[in-house]
C-alpha cells in the first residue's frame, strides 16, 4: 500500500498547478463566466500541448499512453482553479471511444482529440433521468447509409464550441450512441443560463444525419456504454470536487487566522475550529475515496461500488465544505468580488452532476443487495 501520489500523479499535480496559476487566473474565470462563448482556444491548445487531452490515449493513436488515475491529480488542480471548459466531458468521451470504438473510429478521432483539434462533449438528457432508465428522449431512425436524429438535448456542456458529440438516442432496437458532427447545420444551440455560468446548452437536433460508421458500439446495446459514461463522469466530478474542497478549506483557514473580531483571530474560536475540522474530515474522505475508486478501476476490476461511494461522499462534502467556507468568511464571502462564491456555485453543479448523494447511496444499497 502507498498513500503517496504516483510519479505520474505528482507530475500532473505540479504541472497542473503551474498551468492554472498562469493560464486560469480568477480574472479569466470571471471573464469566462460573463462571456457567452466562455472558451479560450489558447488555453485549450496549451492543455493539448501538455499532453492532457491525449493523456489516456495510447501512443499508437497519438496520445501519451497514461492512465486515468494519473488524471485525478490534474482534475484536483482544475477544481482548485475553478476551471471552466469542456475538458472533463472530453475525457469521458475519449474513454468511451477507447473502450467501445472500432479500429476505424479510433484512427479517425483519437489523434485529433490528442492534438486538441477535436473537442468531444457528451450529449445525453438530464443526467439523473438518464442514468436510471434505459430510455432517451432523442430518437434515431434508420435511413439509407445511416441514421437521422431528432429531438432536444439539455445540459450539453460547451456544445456551441465542440466539434463532436457522443450522443445518446433511442432507436427501435434500444438505446444507441452516436458520434455526431457538432458543426452540422441541422443542429441549433441555445445557451442555458446556469448558476455556475458554465456554458451548458440546449441542443436541437433537426433530422441530423449520422453515417452508419459513426455508431459507437452496437445500436440497441448502448445501455452498457451509458452506464459506464455516467460512472466515469461521476468519478471525474469527484476529482474536481476534491480540488474544490481542498482549496476552500485552505482559504477558510487562511481567513480565520487573519480576520480579527473581539480582539482575536476568529480561528481561535472553538466553533470555527471545529467547523474547519469537520471540513478537513470531508476533504480527506473525498480525496481517498476518489483515489481508491480510480485505482480500482485501473486494475481492471469493477469499481462501480467504489465510484458510487466516492460520489455520494463527494456530493455531500462539496455542499458542506462550501457552506462551511461561507460560514467562516461571513459577509465578504458573498460579494461578487470574492472567490468563495465562485467555488460555492461550481460545487453545487458538481454535487448534482452524474448523480447526487441520495442517488449514489441508493446504488450502494443495491450493491449491498438490500
Amino acid at each position: 500500500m502507498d498513500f503517496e501520489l504516483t510519479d505520474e500523479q505528482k507530475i500532473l499535480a505540479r504541472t497542473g498547478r503551474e498551468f492554472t496559476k498562469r493560464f486560469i487566473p480568477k480574472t479569466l474565470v470571471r471573464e469566462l463566466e460573463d462571456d457567452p462563448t466562455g472558451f479560450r482556444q489558447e488555453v485549450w491548445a496549451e492543455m493539448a500541448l501538455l499532453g492532457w487531452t491525449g493523456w489516456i490515449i495510447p501512443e499508437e493513436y497519438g496520445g501519451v499512453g497514461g492512465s486515468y488515475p494519473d488524471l485525478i491529480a490534474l482534475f484536483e488542480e482544475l477544481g482548485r482553479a475553478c476551471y471552466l471548459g469542456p475538458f472533463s466531458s472530453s475525457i469521458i468521451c475519449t474513454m468511451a471511444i477507447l473502450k467501445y470504438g472500432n479500429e476505424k473510429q479510433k484512427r479517425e478521432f483519437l489523434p485529433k482529440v490528442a492534438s486538441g483539434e477535436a473537442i468531444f462533449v457528451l450529449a445525453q438528457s438530464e443526467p439523473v433521468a438518464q442514468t436510471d432508465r434505459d430510455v432517451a428522449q432523442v430518437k434515431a431512425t434508420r435511413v439509407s447509409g445511416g441514421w437521422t436524429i431528432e429531438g432536444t438535448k439539455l445540459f450539453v456542456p460547451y456544445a456551441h464550441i465542440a466539434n463532436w458529440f457522443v450522443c445518446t438516442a433511442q432507436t427501435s432496437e434500444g438505446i444507441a450512441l452516436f458520434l455526431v458532427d457538432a458543426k452540422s447545420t441541422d443542429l441549433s444551440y441555445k445557451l442555458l443560463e446556469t448558476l455556475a455560468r458554465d456554458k451548458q446548452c440546449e441542443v436541437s437536433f433537426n433530422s441530423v444525419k449520422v453515417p452508419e460508421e459513426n455508431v459507437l458500439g452496437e445500436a440497441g446495446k448502448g445501455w452498457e456504454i451509458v452506464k459506464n459514461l455516467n460512472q466515469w463522469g461521476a468519478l471525474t466530478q469527484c476529482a474536481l470536487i476534491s480540488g474544490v474542497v481542498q482549496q476552500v478549506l485552505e482559504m477558510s483557514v487562511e481567513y480565520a487566522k487573519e480576520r480579527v473580531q473581539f480582539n482575536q483571530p476568529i480561528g481561535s474560536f472553538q466553533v470555527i475550529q471545529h467547523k474547519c475540522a469537520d471540513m478537513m474530515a470531508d476533504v480527506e474522505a473525498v480525496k481517498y475515496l476518489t483515489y481508491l475508486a480510480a485505482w480500482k478501476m485501473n486494475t481492471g476490476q469493477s469499481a462501480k461500488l467504489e465510484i458510487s461511494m466516492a460520489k455520494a461522499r463527494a456530493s455531500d462534502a462539496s455542499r458542506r465544505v462550501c457552506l462551511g467556507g461561507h460560514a467562516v468568511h461571513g459577509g465578504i464571502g458573498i460579494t461578487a468580488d470574492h472567490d468563495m462564491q465562485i467555488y460555492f456555485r461550481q460545487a453545487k453543479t458538481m454535487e448534482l452532476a452524474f448523480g447526487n448523494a441520495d442517488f449514489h447511496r441508493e446504488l450502494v444499497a443495491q450493491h449491498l443487495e438490500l
Partner: protein
Amino acid sequence: MDFELTLEEREFEEEVHGFFESQDITEKAREEFESGISTGPFTRELWKRLGEKGWICPHWPKKYGGLELSLVHRYILEEAHSYFGTHSNVVASGMAGPVILRNGTDEQRDEFLLRIAKGEIEFALGYTEPQAGSDLSAIDIRADEADDHFILNGQKLFNTGCHYSDYHWLLVRTEKAKPRYKGLSFLIVDLNSPGITVKPIWVMGGTKGGSHRTNEVYYDNVKVPKERMVGQKNKGFYMLMEALSYERNFPAAQLQRHLAEFVDWLKESGKSKDPIIRQRVAELRIDVEFINLMAMRIAWILQRGDAPDVEAALAKTKWYQFMEDLANLGVDVLGPFGLLHRDSRWATWSGQPEWLFRDFLFFRVAAGTPEIMWNIVAQRGLGLPR
C-alpha cells in the same frame, strides 16, 4: 496511490486468518470478556501462542521477540483481532512498548520488550485522575524523589485493565511546573507493589449488570525504583502525545463485521426496502470504507517512521461516530424490540442493538473525546491558533 497489500502481505494475512479461524475463538473471547474479568486465562493463553509465533510485535527486532517484518504485518494482526473479537496485549505491545523502544534505556528494553512481544505481560494505562480527564496536564499524583526510588501518592480514575495487568504505564507529576505539562514523567510500576489498591468501577456497557469494567487506583506511599522512569524526568508530556497517537489507531475490521452482520440481518427482516433505512445503511457503508482507508494510511505513516497524531485523532473520531450511528440505526430499525436484552426471548439480531446502544458511549470518552480530537485536527492539523 496503491490500496492493496503486497502478495507477501496477503499470504501473511491468510496465514493469520487461518490460525484465528482454527481456534474457534470469537465465542470464547466474548464469553471471557463479558464475564467481568475482561481478560483472563483464555486471552492470556492466546497471547502466549501468538507470542511464540512472533505475532504480537512482528515489526520489532528479533532480539525483542519480533520477526523484523513491517508495521503492515502488525496492522494485519490487529485487524484480525478486531475481526475475530479478540484483543492483543495492546497497551503493552501498541502503546507502552513502542514508547519504551524509542525512549527507554537498554536495560528497560531488555527487561520489558521481549516479555511484551512474547505475550507474557500486559500494561494498563495510568493517565486519568478525578480532576484530569481531557486535560491530562492537570494530573496531580506525586512522585517524590528519594535516594534510589520515587514515592508515589495519589489517585487514578478510569484506569481500565489494572485488575488484570502486570504493569501500570503511569503518568506522574515530578514537578509543580508552569505550565503544568512541563512537570510530567512516565513510570513503569509493578501492579503488585505494596500500597496500590484497585477498586472496580462498572460502566453501563457490556452484559446485564455492567461487565464492562474500569477502575479507581489508589497509590499510598508506593516505592518505584528510579530505573523504572522512561525517558527524561519532566519530559513525559511528549511521550504521552506519542502514546496517545498510537492508542487512537483503532482497527476497522470490527466495524466492517458489525455492519455486514447488520446488513445480513436487515435482509432477513424484510425492512431492507425502506428508502430511508437504505440511505442510512449506505452512508454507514461509505463511512466504514473511509475508516478502513484511514486505518491503512496510519499503518503506512507508522511504517515510514512518522507520528500520525492528526490522522489518528481524525480516524478515532470517525470510528466512534460509526458506532454511535450504527447503534442508533439498530435501535431505530427495530423500535422497542431494539431495546430488549439478548436474554429476552423476543430479542432480535441476538440483542445486538441493545448491547451496542449501552456500549458505544464508552468509545466516545475513551482515548480522547471528539471535542478534543477536533481541537487537535484544527490546531495541529490546520494550524489554527489556540
